[in-house]
């Protein structure tokens, strides 16, 4: 039987943000639908409403013209709407079978029989009696899918399913989804990855700022057209004007940087020497795990290594801690936004205050000058177009892109002479990436320097004036970026040689 799901005028308003603004969409079985949007566009809110986790302020959902009242997840289940969340809803300490049996109505024996049928039919291999915490992310997702399939769903909603999967697992997932689709299950696929939409889905609805801005067939779309719809403006092609003036001063110079560790999870660094000129961006490429973490920590002062010389603006700073280095006008943006760069449980202005530099006057006689910090935070929020003006908001409610903007803003508002960043656009959507790239280029235009440690070659080629590759703790020759091609970088990153 064909399934027809219709969403009519759904609205959901949170304090300070309209998550869904009059959303209407229609889906029919036999097709895979993509719901595309940047982080914070309202996709997750919409699917939470469809699965009964939250209730909309307004609007209705119709399944085969029947008006559904979805006030709890049970209602969604009863109406055969299955949902696989981005963050798995599994019980880690329970076995796979226990996870599946918890909401089953039949006895364990026939349930096991049915699960085994599904495993066989879709070629899944999962041991039912091991605890879920022993499974890989891909297997956990399969458990979630089986849980939905057990209830013979009419609708299956997948919320950013590939964010935790490997390449191989993603392929397997796509094969299964196409199979489900052929069997008449209506599939709604939520993502912000454009390529997935084009390779998997038949129709795509794009959401932006809580509204549906376009519905179209994927065969009429390309990556660029979708990206533009998603961001809402024509994405400017960013290309940096390369700084080649050779006679500029060296502002930052590292000599004999060695690092040795007994920890098997850390990489030793062997005699790194490099320098950065005023207004220059030095890119450091490499596959992750080749010493970038250690390098970043040494440059920022989290790790102090003996016998290393780091000269910054003609002063020796190798023995200084991060706070002291900041006072010399260095700034840092670590890879992990949540656990290294910001404290998610703290409010925005508190996170800004964490980076207290001497001239800021955030603290007077040991007391917090809240007013000053808040003013300062407001300025960061507006200067760096973070999508809230509420400095009291807890940082954990910011999307990745907005959090990164806040962090960069916090670092840059001190007008540093050198910014060191490590994978600044990791996990962000196109709009945010573009914004951050523009910001980094602007820094160089203002004659300030940057060191960009990144695993993204495209980003490095776009932003760097000179590029070096780190491989197993050793740095390659530093090359002017106009001489570098993606192929060359690939060879060096794999440990090869290009001479």
């Amino acid at each position, binding site marked *: 039987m064909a399934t027809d799901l219709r969403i009519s005028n759904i609205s959901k308003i949170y304090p300070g943000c309209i998550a869904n603004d009059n959303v209407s969409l229609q889906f029919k079985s036999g097709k895979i639908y993509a719901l595309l949007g940047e982080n914070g566009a309202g996709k997750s809110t919409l699917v*939470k409403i469809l*699965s009964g*986790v*939250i*209730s909309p302020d307004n609007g209705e959902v119709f399944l085969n013209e029947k008006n559904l009242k979805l006030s*709890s*997840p*049970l209602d969604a*289940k009863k109406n055969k709407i299955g949902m696989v*969340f981005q963050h*798995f*809803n*599994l*019980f*880690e*300490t*329970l076995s796979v079978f*226990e996870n599946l*049996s*918890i*909401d089953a109505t039949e006895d364990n024996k026939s349930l096991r029989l049915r699960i085994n049928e599904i495993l066989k039919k879709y070629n899944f291999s999962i041991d039912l009696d091991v*605890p879920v*915490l022993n499974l890989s992310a891909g297997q956990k997702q399969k458990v979630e899918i089986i849980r939905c399939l057990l209830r013979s769903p009419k609708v299956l909603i997948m919320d950013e399913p590939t964010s935790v999967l490997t390449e191989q697992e993603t392929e397997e997932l796509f094969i299964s989804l196409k199979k489900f689709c052929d069997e008449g299950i209506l599939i709604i696929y939520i993502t912000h990855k454009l390529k997935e939409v084009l390779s998997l889905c038949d129709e795509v609805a794009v959401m932006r700022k809580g509204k549906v801005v376009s519905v179209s067939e994927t065969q009429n779309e390309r990556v660029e057209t979708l990206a533009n719809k998603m961001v809402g403006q024509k994405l400017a092609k960013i290309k940096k004007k390369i700084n080649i003036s050779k006679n500029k001063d060296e502002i930052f110079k590292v000599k004999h940087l060695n690092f040795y560790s007994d920890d098997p999870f850390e990489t030793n660094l062997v005699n790194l020497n490099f320098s950065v000129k005023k207004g220059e961006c030095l890119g450091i490429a490499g596959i992750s795990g080749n010493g970038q973490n250690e390098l970043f920590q040494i440059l920022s002062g989290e790790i102090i290594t003996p016998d290393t010389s780091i000269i910054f603006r003609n002063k020796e700073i190798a023995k200084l801690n991060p706070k002291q280095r900041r006072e010399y006008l260095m700034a840092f943006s670590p890879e992990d936004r949540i656990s290294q760069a910001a404290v998610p449980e703290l409010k925005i202005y508190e996170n800004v205050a964490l980076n207290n530099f001497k001239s800021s006057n955030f603290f007077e006689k040991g007391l917090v000058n809240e007013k000053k910090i808040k003013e300062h935070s407001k300025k960061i929020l507006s200067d760096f177009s973070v999508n809230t003006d509420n400095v009291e908001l807890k940082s954990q409610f910011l999307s990745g892109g907005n959090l990164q903007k806040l962090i960069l803003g916090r670092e840059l508002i001190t007008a540093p002479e050198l910014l060191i960043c490590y994978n600044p656009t990791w996990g962000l959507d196109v709009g945010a990436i573009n914004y951050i790239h523009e910001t980094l280029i602007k820094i160089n235009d203002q004659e300030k320097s940057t060191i960009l440690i990144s695993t993204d070659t495209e980003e490095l080629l776009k932003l760097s004036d000179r590029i070096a590759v780190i491989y197993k703790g050793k740095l390659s020759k530093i090359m002017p970026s106009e001489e570098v091609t993606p192929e060359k970088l690939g060879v060096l990153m794999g440990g090869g040689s290009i001479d």
Partner: protein
Amino acid sequence: MSLDISFIGILIGSIMASSVPLILAASGELITERSGVLNLGVEGMMIIGAISGFALMVLTDNLFIAIVGSMLSGVIISLIFGFLTQSLLTNHVATGLALTIFGIGLSAMLGKNFVGIPGKEFPILFSSLRESIPLFGPILFGHSIVLYFAFALPFLTNYFLKKTKLGLVVRAVGDSPVSASNQGINVILVRYCCILYGGAMCGLAGAYLSLIYTPQWIENMTAGRGWIALALVVFATWSPIKVLIGALIFGGITILQLHMQAIGFRIPVQFLSALPYLMTIIVLVVISRDSRKIKLNTPTSLGRIFYKEK
């Protein structure tokens, strides 16, 4: 020789009796904690159970009403905890501590008029069989019904958690309340039930002290047993059977060191008094070393406040 054997039988019988309140309270708290709720009010709920059981016995002269009443009083006082932590989302630790302080104070106030009143003899079962078998007679027979219940309880708890659907739901809620809620399980309701059950068992544990073990009311008569029960649950890594073992070790060493003190061993009394605590923890730590099992048994969400998205 026959005298020695019967003495050992009686000794073991008394060890069993002294571990009953620990088994009851710890088994109840275990269910509560398995649902992700950390109730530090065990001591307070026990002492309330002790005074209300004793008071009801004096007032009604009916032991059945006294026992049921003590459990109900445990339910009522744990309902305060449940309402605060589950409905008003207060911090588990602070609320539990407050509950204990409240319970001790309230029981002292209620108990003022009951100090010095003699208790009533509690009926014991199979007393005729007690003398019939030399060693096992005093161990197996001649106990109150509460003791038999207490010794069955860890096994029942184990069966409940491992084999029944409801037990699975309790474990699931303790593992991840958010997932459980998204699966349509009423997390708050499950947690309320577990809290109230824990309260009932703690109330019963208290009543065992004031009605059966030492049938009288003395202020603060639980004397820290609630805290021991709490520690047992943690050191037994949330396994009911290990709670039973731990309670027996604790009870056993408590009784033994009393005998050793009486005989006059040349070991400092303070050390002997500390021995039960020390040995229980050592033994439980040793038998629960398997870190994988610990991880599987530990309720992941223990003590964390859960609220439903709206």
